[in-house]
């Protein structure tokens, strides 16, 4: 491509002036340009603030208008958008909330949940495997096939360990007159997020389940999962209990329609 001397510099200076009201005006610009620049800067801020407000509606309700506005401003200053879709500006907003509202950790968890659900909306379509279909397909599995089993999950499904009952929190923020419910749970739990048909959804699970889901999503085999649950130097009884626990997890994933495919490489 032919070099464009001047244009890249001009665009970089223009962008700096949009992002930062204190940045100097680009070379050769005067008061009239400052008026126009102010309009572009206003458009930029308005579009991104609205995009974040739309993406994190419940987080906004939980925070209240003033704190939510400041959180969005902080996020856009710390992490100006670089992706071609404006929707991507919400990436990392949960981390912004975690830093800004450390005494209220449920806020960051809620922001994580909203972002995870939004991310599912445009994920590839992938019909789930029903429990009956999986039972039929796995009926002839021997031990080797079970141990080598690899699962494929709903595209862009996500798992996280959480300290709050996000289901209760979510429901409490429904409607206009939302009330923030106390939602701390006694033991750390887990949350799985995916798209069910065309609707993003989530379910609260145990922290172990969320951790297992993330491991399997990353490519772990079913045998690895049993080993993970059983821990170091397990005896036969512990292994049997771990296999039972893994089976319960698999059953839950299948029941919720999270499993969309599987391979058992040992099968010819």
């Amino acid at each position: 491509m032919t070099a464009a001397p001047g244009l890249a510099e001009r665009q970089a200076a223009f962008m700096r002036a949009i992002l930062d009201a204190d940045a100097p005006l680009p070379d050769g610009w005067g008061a009239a340009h400052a008026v126009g620049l102010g309009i572009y800067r206003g458009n930029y801020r308005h579009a991104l603030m609205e995009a974040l407000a739309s993406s994190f509606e419940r987080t906004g309700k939980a925070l209240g208008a003033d704190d939510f506005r400041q959180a969005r401003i902080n996020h856009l200053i710390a992490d100006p958008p670089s992706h071609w879709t404006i929707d991507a500006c919400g990436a990392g907003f949960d981390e912004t909330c975690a830093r800004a509202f450390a005494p209220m950790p449920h806020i960051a968890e809620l922001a994580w949940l909203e972002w995870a659900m939004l991310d599912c909306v445009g994920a590839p379509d992938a019909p789930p495997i029903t429990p009956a279909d999986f039972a039929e397909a796995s009926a002839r599995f021997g031990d080797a096939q079970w141990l080598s089993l690899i699962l494929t999950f709903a595209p862009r499904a996500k798992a996280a360990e959480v300290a709050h009952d996000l289901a209760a929190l979510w429901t409490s923020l429904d409607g206009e007159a939302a009330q923030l419910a106390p939602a701390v749970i006694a033991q750390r739990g887990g949350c799985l997020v995916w798209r069910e048909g065309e609707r993003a959804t989530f379910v609260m699970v145990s922290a172990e389940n969320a951790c297992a889901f993330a491991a399997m999503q990353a490519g772990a085999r079913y045998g690895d999962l049993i080993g993970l649950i059983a821990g170091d130097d397990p005896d036969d009884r512990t292994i049997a209990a771990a296999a039972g626990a893994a089976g319960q997890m698999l059953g839950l994933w299948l029941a919720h329609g999270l499993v969309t495919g599987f391979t058992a490489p040992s099968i010819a």
Partner: protein
Amino acid sequence: MLSAPPSIPPFSGFGLGLRPPHFDDFLSEEPVKSVDFVEVIAENYMVEGGRWLRLLGLVRERLPVILHAVSMSIGSAHGLDCDHLFRLKALADRIDPLWVSDHLCWTRTSAHNAHDLLPLPLTKAALQVVCENIDTAQSALGRAMLFENPSSYLTFPEDEMSEWEFLSDMARRTGCYLLLDVNNIYVSARNHGFDPHEYLAGLPLDRVRQIHLAGHDPATLQRPVIIDTHDREVAGEVWALYAHAMSLIGQPVATMIERDENIPPLAELLSELERARTIVGVAAGTVVSA
């Protein structure tokens, strides 16, 4: 120009920018008879699956669809975003649109994206960058594109030509077509003090395939700049300029009402579309003006 892109034949019709509040209208059992095509914001559908992509497919079964992109950033000195281009092509291959369009503008540097249609300096160097990027885009998409004249709120001290001269050279050198936004011409003419009729007279109008009509926020004593807002009905001055444009354009074009904020019930937009139909009828001599 790398090689001449396939030509886009003229399309005669009247359409709307399709936004989510009106999907039900367009998918109801009773078809919207007075709409010949719809235009959608391409980026909203550049996804891999889900509800909105499915609904767009259903609309496409009923009507021609135009993909109007806003993030190609054809004026970026750093070239095009390959991921954006790849996804736009995937959508175009899936939807088989009437055509694909974007704007004469830039939106991003190598580091950041403003998500706004920013103006370009009207220089030979910028024209060279734009033409190279259009060649790349048209080659990747395998089709000619339309590019829309932007509304703008500032001009550059280094400008070497008028916007209509820039657009004319751009179309000649790349084989692209023009999406004429009449409201944008009006807005920029008022903001920068040029004659909109001179603008129209200076364009290669045979390259126009589509016209946008939209509303704007008028200047005030406190703010002497008109802002392109797409949040209200088309202004009287813009209708007059549209009538003038249609009297100059020799081939059929697709005319569209564009509304992005304060989206009203469909009937209001159809009423504006009828006004455009009447104006075209008058320009063509098939309707007698009252």
